[in-house]
C-alpha cells in the first residue's frame, strides 16, 4: 500500500507548487503585463489624426526619431493624472510624444486637450480599437517607447509618474537617442 500512499500525495504536491506560483504572482506588479511586441516593429496601422480627420497616418510617422506613443482617452482618470507629466516631458526633455487616442469620442478628446494642454506632436484617433488590438492595448493609459527604426523598445502600463519617467522610460529614450546621433 506504500505506493498508493505516495501516489495520493501527488495532487497535494501539484497544488502546493501552483499555490507557490500564485503567491509569487501576487508579489508582481499587476500592471507589468508582458508585451510580446517588445523588440518588434510597430504593427502596421492606418488611422486618422485626431485634429484633422482628413489626415491619414501610418507607421512612417514613427520613424526617424525616438517617440513615446501614449495611449489615452478623455474618459480615463489616470490619463488626466499623467497628463501634466507628459506636458513636462515634452517641454523639458524635447521628446516627441505621439498621442494614441483610444476608444474615445473626437469632441471630448479635443475638449480635454483644450482644457489641460496638448503634449502631443500629433494624436492618432482609434475610436474602435482597430489598431489598438494589434498593439495589444489592454487599457488606458499605456505608453510605448518606439526607437527611430520603428521598433517597440518598452511598454509602460499605467500612468507615467516622475519616478517612472526617471527610472524606466528616460534611460531607454536616451539610449536610443544617443545611438541615433
Amino acid at each position: 500500500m506504500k505506493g498508493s500512499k505516495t501516489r495520493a500525495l501527488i495532487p497535494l504536491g501539484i497544488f502546493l507548487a501552483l499555490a507557490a506560483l500564485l503567491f509569487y504572482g501576487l508579489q508582481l506588479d499587476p500592471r507589468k503585463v508582458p508585451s510580446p511586441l517588445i523588440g518588434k516593429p510597430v504593427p502596421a496601422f492606418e488611422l486618422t489624426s485626431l485634429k484633422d480627420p482628413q489626415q491619414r497616418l501610418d507607421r512612417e510617422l514613427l520613424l526617424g526619431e525616438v517617440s513615446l506613443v501614449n495611449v489615452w482617452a478623455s474618459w480615463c482618470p489616470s490619463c488626466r493624472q499623467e497628463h501634466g507629466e507628459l506636458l513636462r516631458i515634452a517641454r523639458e526633455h524635447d521628446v516627441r510624444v505621439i498621442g494614441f487616442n483610444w476608444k474615445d469620442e473626437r469632441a471630448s478628446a479635443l475638449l480635454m486637450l483644450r482644457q489641460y494642454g496638448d503634449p502631443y506632436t500629433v494624436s492618432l484617433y482609434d475610436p474602435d480599437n482597430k489598431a489598438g488590438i494589434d498593439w495589444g492595448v489592454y487599457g488606458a493609459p499605456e505608453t510605448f517607447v518606439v526607437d527611430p527604426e520603428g521598433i517597440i523598445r518598452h511598454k509602460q502600463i499605467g500612468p507615467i509618474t516622475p519616478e517612472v519617467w526617471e527610472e524606466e522610460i528616460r534611460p531607454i529614450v536616451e539610449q536610443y537617442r544617443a545611438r541615433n546621433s
Partner: protein
Amino acid sequence: MVPELGHFALILALAITLVQAVLPLAGSFTGNRTWMAMARPLAWGQLTFTSIAFGCLLLAFLTDDFSVIYVASNSNTLMPLIYKISAVWGAHEGSLLLWALMLAAWGAAVAAYSKNLPLPMVARVLAVMGMVAIGFLLFMLLTSNPFERIYPAPLEGRDLNPLLQDPGLAIHPPMLYMGYVGFSVAFAFAIAALLGGKLDAAWARWSRPWTAIAWVFLTIGIALGSWWSYYELGWGGWWFWDPVENASFMPWLVGTALIHSLAVTEKRAAFKSWTVLLAISAFSLSLLGTFLVRSGVLTSVHAFATDPARGSFILLFLCVVIGGSLALYAWRAADISGGGRFDLLSRESFLLINNLLFTALTILVLFGTLAPLIYEAAGWGKISVGFPWFNKMFVALSPLLVLATGIGPNTRWKHDEPARLLRALWLAAGLGIAAFLLVSWPGFSARDIGVGVGIGMSLWLVVTHLASLRDRLKHKGGLRALRRDINPSSRSYYGMQLAHLGLAVFIVGVTMVSNDGVETDVRMSPGDVHVHEASGYRFQFNGVTAVPGPNYRAQRGEFVVYDGEREIAVLHPEKRHYLSGGMPMTEAAIDAGLLRDIYISLGEPIGSSGDWALRLYYKPYVRWIWLGAILMALGATVSASDRRYRSVRNRAPAPAGAAEAVA
C-alpha cells in the same frame, strides 16, 4: 439604516455559519444526533440572513442610496430598473454577496432534498458547505464590504460599466456562479465521504444529480457569456481564450469528466479515488477562477477588481480549502479499495479515456492561462499565450474525444467482444469517413481538411448514438418500443443521448463558422451598396441618424440587406455614448438565422459627408454553437431528473456497490 441592517445580517450569517461548520461535524463523530440534526436548520438560517443582506443591498440600489459607496460607483438615477438590479452583482463586492447567497441556497437545497440520506452524511455535507461559506463571508466582511458608506453622499452615481448594461450580461454572472457554487455540493459530498471513510456506490448516486445540475448552470452561464461577447463586443467572435473565460472553462471541463466518472463509480464502483479527486478539483478550479479574476495576478479585459489585499486573502483561503482537502485525500485515498475490475475493451475503458482527455484539456487551459506567470517566475522572460495556441491544442485533442464519445455508449460494462463492437460501429465509421471524403477529397468539394473532419465527426456521433439506441431497443421490440422506453427511469440514458447530440451540433457550428465565416471592413457613403461576395448578399447603407436612449445618445445606422432582389432584413447597428461618460459602445445589428447570421457593426465616421467605416460579417451556422450548448444543458437536466436518484432508499444498490458497503 437599511445598509447597516444588511451589514448586521451578514455578520449574523457568519455567526450561524461558524456553528454550522463545527457542531454537526462534531456530532457526526461523537454520534450526537441532536447536534447532527442542527445542520438543516442552521443551513436555513444561513440562507435567511444572507438573503436579508442581499435584499438590503438590492433596496439600496432601487432607492438610489448613493451614501453607499458601492451603489454610488455602480448605479445612477437614469439607469433602467433591470440594470439597477443587475448592478447589484455588477462589481466585486456585490458579486461576492451573490456568491454567498447562492452557496447558502445550495446548502438549503441540500437540507431540503436529503430526506433519503443518512443523518451523519447530511451533517458532514452541510458542515463542509458551512466552512466554504465562512471563507466567503469573512472575505466580504474583512476586505470587500458592499455596505460601506461615504459622507457626504454624492448627488448622483457613476453608472454601471456600459458594457455590462445588457440583458445577456444581467443573467450571465448569476448562471455562472450557480455553476461554480453548485460544484461545492459535489465537493462537500466527496469530503464528507472521505471524512466518514465510506466511499461507496451510494455516495456516487447522491452526488450525481447535484453535479449534473451545477454543470447545467455552468454550461448555460458559459454559453451566455459567449453569446454576449459575440453580439456586444462587436468583433463577431464567440470565444477569446481570455483568462476569465478560461477560469470558467476549467471547472466546466473537470465537471464534465466528473459527471462521467461518477457514472462509473455508481454503476461499477470503479474509479472511486479518481472520482473524489475530480470532485475536489472541480470546486477547487471554481475557487481558483474567482482568485484569478480578482487578485490581479493575471490581467484581463474582465478584471474588475484588482487589489493585492484581496488577492492575499483568497490565496490563503484557497490554500486552506484546496490544500486541506487534498491533504485529507492523501491521508484517506490509500484506504479506498480499487472497486470493480474491467477488461481493456469495456465501457469503463472508454469513460476512462474520456476522463483522461478532459483532464488533459484542463491542464492545457490551466497551463496556457498561467504560462505568462510561469515564464516570469522561472526567469525565462515574458510571453503571452495567444488563442492560436489554445485552438491548435483543442483541434488536436477533440477528435480523439469525439471518437471515444461515439464508442463509449456502444460498449458493454466490464467486458465486450471486439467482433460485436465492430458490428455495432461499422456503419457509423463508414458514414463518417464517407462524409469526410465527400467534403475534403480534392476530387469532390476539396474543402479544408478541418471541415471534413468536423462534419465527419458530427455524423459519427449521431450515427453511433442511433446504433446505441437501436441496440437498447432490440430486445424490447424495436423502434416501436421507443415511446414506452422513454419513461422516468430511463431519463439518464435519454439525457445522455441529448447531450451528446448537442456535442455534434456544437461541432458543426464551430467547424462552419471557423472555416466559412467572412469578415469585411468597408467604407460606405449613404446610398452605397456593398456586395458581399462570399455570401451573395447586398448591403445598402441608408446613412446614420441620432437617436436618444434612456441613459445614452446613440448614432443609429440603417442597412437594407438583399439576397438577390429580395429584401431579407433591415438592420440598425448603433454606436452609443453613455451620458455618464466612458467609452462609446458598439451595438452590432444581427439578422440571426439557423443557417447563418448577418452581422453589422458601426466603426467610425470618416470625414463630414456621412461616410462610415463598417464591419460586415457573414457567420454561417454560428447559432449551432449555442444550440449545442443548450442541448447539452437540456440533456444533463433530463438525466438529473431520473427517478433512480430520487428513491435511493427503496432500491437495492448495484451488486458491486453492495459488496463494497459490506466490506
